[in-house]
């Protein structure tokens, strides 16, 4: 064998595509072109297999029994926690709290960490490109406790105005809540810079990593970030599971969110004392099978050269951007340097929902609407956009199908 024949491509997208059973199905008699991974990613066979196998061989409730299976299930659940720890680069496994998703992770910070620290007039800094799940929990504190939301704008290309963010952090700022990657614009935020600016004023930072964790390589220690939220179903894992990374020092001061089993040290008729983190924040029977599934998804993702995966997704983005340039009736929203593999656009004379309906009949699944980011829609003066989001299993043929379907939509609606 020659040396050249031994060279394996860093990331074989076509091979990876075969890992996802659903991608071989058809819709309306046409091959499925799935460009909605930003809403939820498809699951590789390995993840589904890991969940089934666990349920068939090692399943019981966790942390409760003395019997064999209870120990096996607890081991699997805690191993899943270590997998998330490794994925995020956390120093300790007990800095990982399992939640039912990214939304719950952010709400946990709002309720457990920030609410007790808020006096009327205290400020929370956030950007206009946040997802509603990184907005509404802070609105709660505005409504209930008189917190003030300080909105940081994005530039016209969708990049974060980092100077404005720095300037928005003042003596009354209690938290910076910022997306790692916008689910509409694809903009990736400079977390390290943000954290440095916030910490210089002793303000903690929460990153909404629901999109960022899919595409970026994360090291919470290097970032020195205080909180990082992620959700399982977007990283090729199951629904019903997510995680919050929080620095140990913060977790220790946080009040519990839900009360119930698992999260206590002792309960009497008069008093209750709480378990140490992370159990304190995991009341009730957790999503055990889902935790195992999320760990399998992370293992799946980490087995690839992630820089190569990112390069592949970036290639798709660049290719899509080029091909869409042919349509002068189409306006792409979000062109920030270094953005991730999400492309949102508005089509002249075509409402996003009409467009998405026509694409759908061509087998092309895109998202249309406000993407749970209404303040951002307002910022760009649009009611809604269409969005194609790319995952590791997409290829250039998917982009071609999108372009062909767009041409058809123009023919029908234009």
């Amino acid at each position: 064998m020659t040396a050249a024949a031994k060279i394996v491509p860093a990331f074989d997208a076509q091979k990876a595509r075969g890992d996802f059973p659903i991608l071989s199905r058809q819709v309306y008699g046409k091959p499925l072109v799935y460009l909605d991974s930003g809403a939820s990613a498809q699951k590789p066979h390995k993840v589904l297999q890991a969940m089934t196998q666990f349920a068939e061989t090692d399943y019981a409730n966790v942390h409760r029994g003395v019997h064999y299976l209870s120990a096996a299930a607890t081991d699997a659940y805690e191993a899943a926690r270590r997998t998330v720890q490794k994925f995020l680069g956390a120093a300790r496994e007990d800095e990982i709290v399992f939640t039912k998703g990214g939304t719950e992770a952010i709400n946990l910070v709002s309720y457990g960490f920030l609410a007790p620290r808020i006096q009327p007039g205290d400020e929370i800094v956030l950007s206009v490109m946040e997802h509603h799940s990184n907005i509404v929990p802070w609105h709660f504190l505005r409504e209930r406790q008189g917190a003030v939301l300080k909105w940081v704008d994005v530039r016209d290309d969708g990049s974060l105005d980092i100077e404005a963010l720095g300037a928005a952090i003042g003596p009354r700022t209690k938290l910076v809540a910022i997306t790692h990657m916008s689910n509409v614009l694809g903009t990736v935020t400079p977390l390290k810079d943000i954290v440095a600016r916030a910490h210089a004023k002793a303000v903690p930072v929460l990153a909404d990593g629901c999109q960022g964790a899919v595409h970026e390589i994360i090291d919470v220690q290097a970032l020195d970030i205080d909180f990082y939220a992620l959700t399982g179903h977007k990283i090729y894992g199951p629904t019903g599971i997510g995680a919050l990374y929080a620095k140990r020092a913060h977790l220790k001061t946080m009040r519990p969110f839900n009360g119930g089993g698992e999260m206590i040290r002792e309960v009497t008729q008069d008093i209750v004392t709480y378990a140490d983190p992370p159990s304190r924040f995991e009341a009730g029977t957790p999503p055990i099978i889902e935790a195992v599934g999320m760990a399998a998804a992370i293992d799946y993702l980490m087995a690839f050269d992630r820089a190569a995966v990112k390069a592949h997704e970036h290639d798709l983005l660049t290719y899509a951007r080029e091909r869409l340039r042919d349509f002068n009736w189409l306006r792409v929203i979000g062109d920030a340097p270094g953005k991730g593999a999400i492309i949102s656009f508005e089509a002249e004379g075509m409402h996003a929902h009409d467009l998405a309906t026509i694409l759908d009949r061509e087998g092309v699944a895109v998202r249309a609407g406000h993407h749970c980011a209404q303040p951002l829609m307002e910022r760009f003066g649009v009611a809604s956009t269409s969005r194609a989001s790319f995952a590791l299993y997409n290829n250039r043929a998917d982009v071609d199908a999108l372009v062909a379907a767009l041409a058809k939509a123009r023919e029908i609606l234009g």
Partner: protein
Amino acid sequence: MDQSLRELYQEVILDHSRHPRHFGALENATHKAEGYNPLCGDRVTVMVMLDGEGRVADIKFQGKGCAISQASASLMTEMLAGRTRAEAEKLMEGFLHLAKGEEAPGLSPDDREYLDVMSGISEFPMRVKCATLAWHTFKNAVEEGKNAMDEGVT
């Protein structure tokens, strides 16, 4: 090309969506309601002037939305002008049946034929709400000017 798409986005529908009839403000409206579809952010305001006998003397709508919601609102205003409230209600009922792909026995042959251009929507269950928004909003307007948003538009 998918036949059901051609049917949904047929020329009549596109024409109504691009050149909606009865579009604008109705200065002397007696009834008015706003409809909102939180799913897509589409909004429609329906303004009605009922005469002494409860007949739709004039009707107008305003709003922004997809081709389906705009065309449906436009067609609706054309149909409702001159009708009594009872007639309007029967029309709406018939339309809701058509939108779900059901028979609409209560409709006169003429009305049935007129509404037929919208019946393609039944093949697109995710879009039925777009087509029914204006009708629900009209109903809310004539019933004490309620807000369609509070009604959980279906």
